[in-house]
C-alpha cells in the first residue's frame, strides 16, 4: 500500500488524469517492446520461412501429384470410353467435396441432336431437353474443349435443367471431344469453387490430360478400324484377284471346251448315225448269212473267224454306241460353258429346287446318311433356270455322298441375308486340302477314279452359278467336312 501521508494532496480528477497518462506511457512502452519482439520473431521466422514454405508447398504438391499419378494410371488401363469417363468424373467429384456429378453425351447428327445423360454408375438415359439445348448446352459446346468452365445457378439460362437435376450454386463443366460428332460434358454440381490456385491448376492439368487420353484412345480406335478395313480390303482384293484369275481361266477353258465340243459335235453326229446304220447293215449281213446253208458257210476258209466275228460284232457295236453316247453327254455338258447359249429364265423357288434335287439323289443317301434340311420358309423367288439349278444341287449332293464313304450328315440350309438368298450345303465327309480347293472348279479336274467322274460336275455347276449372277464358294479342311455356300441375288419385280 502506498504511504498516504507522503502522497501529494492532489484532487481526484487530477489523479485520474495522471493515472491515464501513466497508463498511456506504459502502453506505449509495451507496444515498443512488442514491436522489438515482433521484429526479432520476424527475423527468426524468415530464417526458417523458406523451409516452412517448402514443406507446405511440398505437402500440397504431393496430394496433387498423387491425384495426377492415379489419374494417369487409370487412363493407362485399357478401359472403354464409358468407364474412363466414369472414373475420371468420379475422382474429380471426390476432390470437390464429393459433389454430385453427371456425364452428358451429345451426338450431333446432321440437324438432329441427341443427348443422353448418365451418372457414372448408371446406364445412359435419353433426356428430352429441347429447350435447354438451345439455351444451355449449345452455348456450352461453343466453349474450349478440355478446360473447365462454369455456369452459375443464378444464371436464368439454366433454370429448367438446373432445377431438375442440380441443387448447388454452380455447375463446373468440362467438354471433351470424343468423335467429330460426339461430345461429352462432365457436369459437377458444386456449391463453390474456392480452392487454392495450385488445386485449380491441378484440375486444369487433369482435364487436359484426360482430353488428350480420350483423343489418344479414339485415335487408337480409329486406327484399329482403319487396320480392320485395310485387312478386309486386302482380303477382298485377294478374293477378287483369285476370282478374276479363276474366271479368266474358266472363260478360256470354257471357250476352248465349247469350241472343242462344237468341233466334236459334227463327227460325233455322223459317227452315231453311221453306227446305227452300220448296226442295221450288220443285221442284214447276219440275216443273209443265216439264210445260207450251214455246210456252205462251214466250207469257207475263215469259217471259224466269221462265226466269232458274227458273235462279237454286235457287242462291239453296242459298246461303241454307249461310248459315243457318253461322248455326246460330255459334249452337251461342255456346251454349258458357252455364254452365247440362250436359256429360259423364270421365277424359281430355291427351296423347291433343293427338294427336287434331293429326290433325285435320295437313293444314294437314304440308307447310310442323315439328311438335315433347314430351309427358311417364305424366301423370295430368284430369277433362274430350274433345270440348271437342279443340276447344280444334284452335283453338290452327289459329291457330298461320295465324300462320306460310310456314313455322315448332309445339312442343307437356306436363308435370306441382306439382298441375297444364301444356301449352304455342308457334309461331314473327308474334306479337301488347299491345293484341291484351288482347282476344284476347273474343267476335267477330278479326285475321283476315271470311271467315276469326268471332272466336269463342279466346273459345269460353277458356269451355271455364274450365269445366274450368283456366287459359289467352298470352305473345307481335310477330315473336317466341306461347306459349299451359294449366294443368289434377289431380283425384286
Amino acid at each position, binding site marked *: 500500500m502506498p504511504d498516504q501521508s507522503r502522497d501529494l494532496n492532489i484532487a481526484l480528477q487530477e489523479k485520474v488524469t495522471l493515472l491515464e497518462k501513466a497508463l498511456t506511457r506504459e502502453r506505449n512502452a509495451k*507496444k515498443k517492446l512488442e514491436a522489438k*519482439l*515482433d521484429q526479432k*520473431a520476424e527475423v*527468426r*521466422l524468415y530464417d526458417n520461412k523458406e523451409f516452412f514454405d517448402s514443406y507446405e508447398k511440398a505437402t500440397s504438391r504431393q496430394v496433387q501429384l498423387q491425384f495426377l499419378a492415379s489419374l494417369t494410371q487409370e487412363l493407362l488401363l485399357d478401359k472403354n470410353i464409358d468407364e474412363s469417363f466414369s472414373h475420371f468424373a468420379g475422382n474429380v467429384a471426390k476432390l470437390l467435396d464429393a459433389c454430385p456429378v453427371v456425364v452428358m453425351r451429345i451426338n450431333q447428327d446432321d440437324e438432329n441432336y441427341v443427348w443422353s445423360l448418365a451418372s457414372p454408375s448408371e446406364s445412359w438415359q435419353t433426356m428430352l431437353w429441347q429447350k435447354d439445348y438451345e439455351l444451355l448446352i449449345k452455348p456450352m459446346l461453343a466453349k474450349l474443349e478440355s478446360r473447365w468452365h462454369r455456369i452459375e445457378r443464378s444464371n436464368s439460362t439454366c433454370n429448367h435443367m438446373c432445377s431438375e437435376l442440380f441443387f448447388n450454386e454452380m455447375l463446373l463443366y468440362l467438354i471433351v471431344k470424343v468423335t467429330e460428332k460426339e461430345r461429352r460434358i462432365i457436369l459437377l454440381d458444386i*456449391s463453390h469453387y*474456392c*480452392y487454392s490456385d495450385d488445386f485449380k491448376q491441378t484440375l486444369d492439368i487433369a482435364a487436359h490430360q484426360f482430353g488428350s487420353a480420350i483423343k489418344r484412345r479414339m485415335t487408337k480406335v480409329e486406327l484399329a478400324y482403319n487396320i480392320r478395313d485395310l485387312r478386309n480390303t486386302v482380303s477382298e482384293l485377294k478374293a477378287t484377284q483369285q476370282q478374276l484369275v479363276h474366271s479368266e481361266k474358266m472363260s478360256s477353258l470354257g471357250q476352248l471346251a465349247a469350241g472343242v465340243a462344237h468341233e466334236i459335235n459334227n463327227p460325233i453326229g455322223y459317227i452315231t448315225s453311221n453306227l446305227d446304220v452300220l448296226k442295221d447293215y450288220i443285221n442284214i449281213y447276219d440275216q443273209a448269212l443265216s439264210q445260207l446253208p450251214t455246210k456252205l458257210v462251214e466250207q469257207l476258209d475263215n469259217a471259224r473267224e466269221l462265226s466269232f466275228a458274227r458273235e462279237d460284232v454286235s457287242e462291239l457295236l453296242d459298246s461303241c454306241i454307249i461310248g459315243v453316247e457318253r461322248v455326246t453327254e460330255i459334249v452337251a455338258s461342255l456346251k454349258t460353258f458357252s455364254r452365247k447359249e440362250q436359256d429360259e429364265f423364270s421365277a424359281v423357288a430355291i427351296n423347291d429346287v433343293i427338294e427336287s434335287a434331293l429326290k433325285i439323289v435320295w437313293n444314294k443317301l437314304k440308307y447310310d446318311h442323315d439328311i438335315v434340311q433347314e430351309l427358311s420358309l417364305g424366301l423370295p423367288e430368284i430369277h433362274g433356270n430350274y433345270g440348271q439349278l437342279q443340276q447344280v444341287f444334284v452335283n453338290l449332293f452327289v459329291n457330298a455322298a461320295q465324300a462320306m464313304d460310310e456314313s455322315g450328315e448332309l445339312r442343307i440350309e437356306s436363308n435370306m441375308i441382306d439382298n441375297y438368298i444364301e444356301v449352304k450345303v455342308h457334309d461331314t465327309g473327308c474334306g479337301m486340302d488347299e491345293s484341291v480347293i484351288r482347282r476344284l472348279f476347273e474343267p476335267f479336274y477330278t479326285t475321283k477314279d476315271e470311271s467315276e467322274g469326268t471332272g466336269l460336275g463342279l466346273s459345269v455347276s460353277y458356269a451355271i452359278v455364274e450365269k445366274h449372277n450368283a456366287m459359289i464358294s467352298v470352305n473345307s479342311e481335310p477330315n473336317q467336312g466341306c461347306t459349299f455356300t451359294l449366294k443368289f441375288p434377289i431380283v425384286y419385280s
Partner: protein
Amino acid sequence: MKGAIFTGFAEYVEKEFGLTTWLKTLDSCELASNGEYLSTELYEDVEFKVLADTLGTIIGVDREYLFRGFGEYFFPVLMSLGLPHVKEINNLFDFMRAVDSVIHIEVQKSDPLAYTPTLLYDQPHDNVLIIRYISHRQMCHFAEGLILGAAAHFQQKAHIYQTKCLCKGDEHCLIRVEI
C-alpha cells in the same frame, strides 16, 4: 490466437465502450492469462470467446455485432503496421487475397507450427470474390468486419453476405463479396 487480436480488441472496446467497460469485462472473466496480453504471444482461443460473450452481456449486444465492429476497427490498425503483404495494396479484392498470407505470417512469428485458418478464394466475375473460410475459431464475422473496413479504406462500396456459415453448423463459411 495471436495476442495482437486481444490487444487490438482491448483498444476497440476501450474506444467504443470505454476503458472501464473493458476493465469490467476483464474483471468478470476467469482467464488463464489474467487478461495480460502481449501482441507477440499466442493465447487460448477460448479466451477471446469468453471476453466477447462477457462484453456482449455487459453492454447488451451479440457476438456477431461485436466481431464485425472489431473487424472494421482493426483494419486501419493492420494497415498501420506496414506489413509487407498489405502495405502496397490499393483495392479491396487484393487485400482480401493477401489476408491469408498476413494471418499465416503473423501467427507463425509466434509459433511456426501453430494452427492457422484456411482461406480459399474464387472470383467468378470481376466484381465478385467468394472466400471459403475454414477455422474452428469461427471468426467469420470478424472477417466480414475487416472486409467492410477495407472497403471503406479503399473507398469501394461492398455488399457482403454469407451463403454458408460455420456458426450455423456448415462445414465452412462462404463469404460472397460484391463490389
